């Protein structure tokens, strides 16, 4: 077992934890955090699996950078919608969710 798999497995674990958080929580901010944890998990898998003894693979690194930017943008967008929703309704969760 190579060290690389440790990273990938950590990524998998983060993804699983994030998924649980995403399901379990109702508070939208927490769900967003869970989403970001899942995202980190995927990025870790992406980078972790690329180390297979043939040197560093720059492609996953580039993909992860793109992925991070996309995640930042999505999170920002979600925060905007969330804040506006909170101000309109005073709720931190979605209706019909509880």
């Amino acid at each position: 077992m190579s060290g690389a798999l440790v990273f990938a497995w950590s990524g998998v674990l983060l993804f699983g934890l994030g998924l649980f958080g995403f399901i379990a929580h109702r508070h939208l901010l927490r769900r967003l955090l869970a989403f970001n944890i899942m995202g980190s998990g995927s990025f870790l898998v992406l980078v972790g699996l690329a180390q297979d003894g043939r040197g560093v693979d720059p492609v996953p690194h580039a993909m992860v950078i793109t992925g991070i930017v996309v995640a930042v943008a999505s999170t920002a967008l979600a925060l905007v919608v969330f804040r506006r929703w909170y101000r309109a309704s005073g709720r931190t969760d979605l209706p019909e969710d509880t």
Partner: protein
Amino acid sequence: MIGLWSVPLLFALPLALGILSLLVTPAWRPRLIFVGLPLLTLASVDVLARLVLEGPRIYELGGWEAPLGINLVVDGLAVGMILMTTLVASLCALYARVYLRDYPASSSFFWPLLWLLWAGMNGIWLAEDIFNLYVGLEVMGLAAVGMVALRATPQALAAAMRYLLAALLGSLAYLLGVALLYATYGTLSMAGLQEAAAPNATTHVALALIILGLLLKTALFPLHAWLPPAHGGALTPVSALLSALVIKGSFYILMRIWLVLGPEVTPIFTAQLLGVLGAGAVFYGGWMAWRQHHLKQLVAYSTVAQIGYLFLFFPLVTGTGPEAARLAWDGTLMMLVAHALAKAALFLSAGNLILAVGSTQISHLVGISRFRPMSLFSFGLAGVSLMGLPPSGGFTGKWLLLHSAILSDQWWWLIVLFLGGLLSAAYIFKVFRMSFREGPQIDRSITPPLTLDVTALILASASILIGLTAHLPLFWLRLGSAFGAG
């Protein structure tokens, strides 16, 4: 080589227009369509002409060959989707230009979102690279979320938030699937994957992640919950765009990846499961649509139901003979295009009816047939296609799917097709019965501008025409696919 301009223009042009519309004053934003629509139509038609004359091709962005660079695939399927997008989005844009005059606050930011959405969709249709598809999905998905939120009412915000959460979860699952596929095959290009794909645990798990991620974005039952509030509650042109085009994006990716991985890799169990979920969608969506009291909610649930038909593609194409698979391909694409046209028409004409009576309640439509026969006519024509009555596109699609199901001895899908048609007839006639009934509720109606009626009518007629002349489009759609041009 000038002709190759049109391929990158298909996404570069909407992107540029998106930026431009952000820079000009709000009054000028709607007017940009008079530049954009002709140019995009020209580019789409040029791509089609080249496809027909010169055959399918690969476009190497940056001049880098596929696994290193990103390629675009210009085959029949991609071009078909591009033309469909151009037609539907152009008409929706024309509709929106008039419709949004009543919503000045929302209208100024509708336009940049529309162009970015368009760029994202064209990016998806052309993409040959599974990671590029992820970015394209995000562009399309976030633009769609933004459009849903445009109204900024509490309902719209909640719908947008729910949609966003679903979209984010779906994208991440897809991304993880892509990560696993890259780790296994060392390539992101579909052509490379097609060559290398082999059945092993990693591929299967990756496929599961990709499927589920895309299902969530396509809103297949039972993961459809975000769709009705988002599509039913948005501004009318937004609903039309979302229902007609956006959900097709993720389905399209799923279809491509399924075919790329090939019958050795894609498990029959999953195919049948997708078919069963599709059948569930047809029944559940139909039932819910029938129960609705709000016109646009009814149409939104009808989308939930119609998505189900598309997923019959998977059981019909996996592990069946070449003839059945070809029919399934033809039928699914016909259903997809016909639904795009009919659903856009249905939403637009529903918007017109709502505008005319000033209420979203179906029960308030009593007697509207006397005042707005044209809006009702478009609604009916589109309904004909959704019900699958001849000679509409919906009928042709179902006819082909029926043949495929019979040929592959999967008669149980026939029941879905038949009962689904009856259910759609039930909810379409529910609207009709109300509008033909004479009642005291209204004695006059507001007359919406002619543009609104005409755009809806064009789309509705197109959904019928595509069924009448199905032969040629289906031939083009097969160009460059595994089903040959036979």
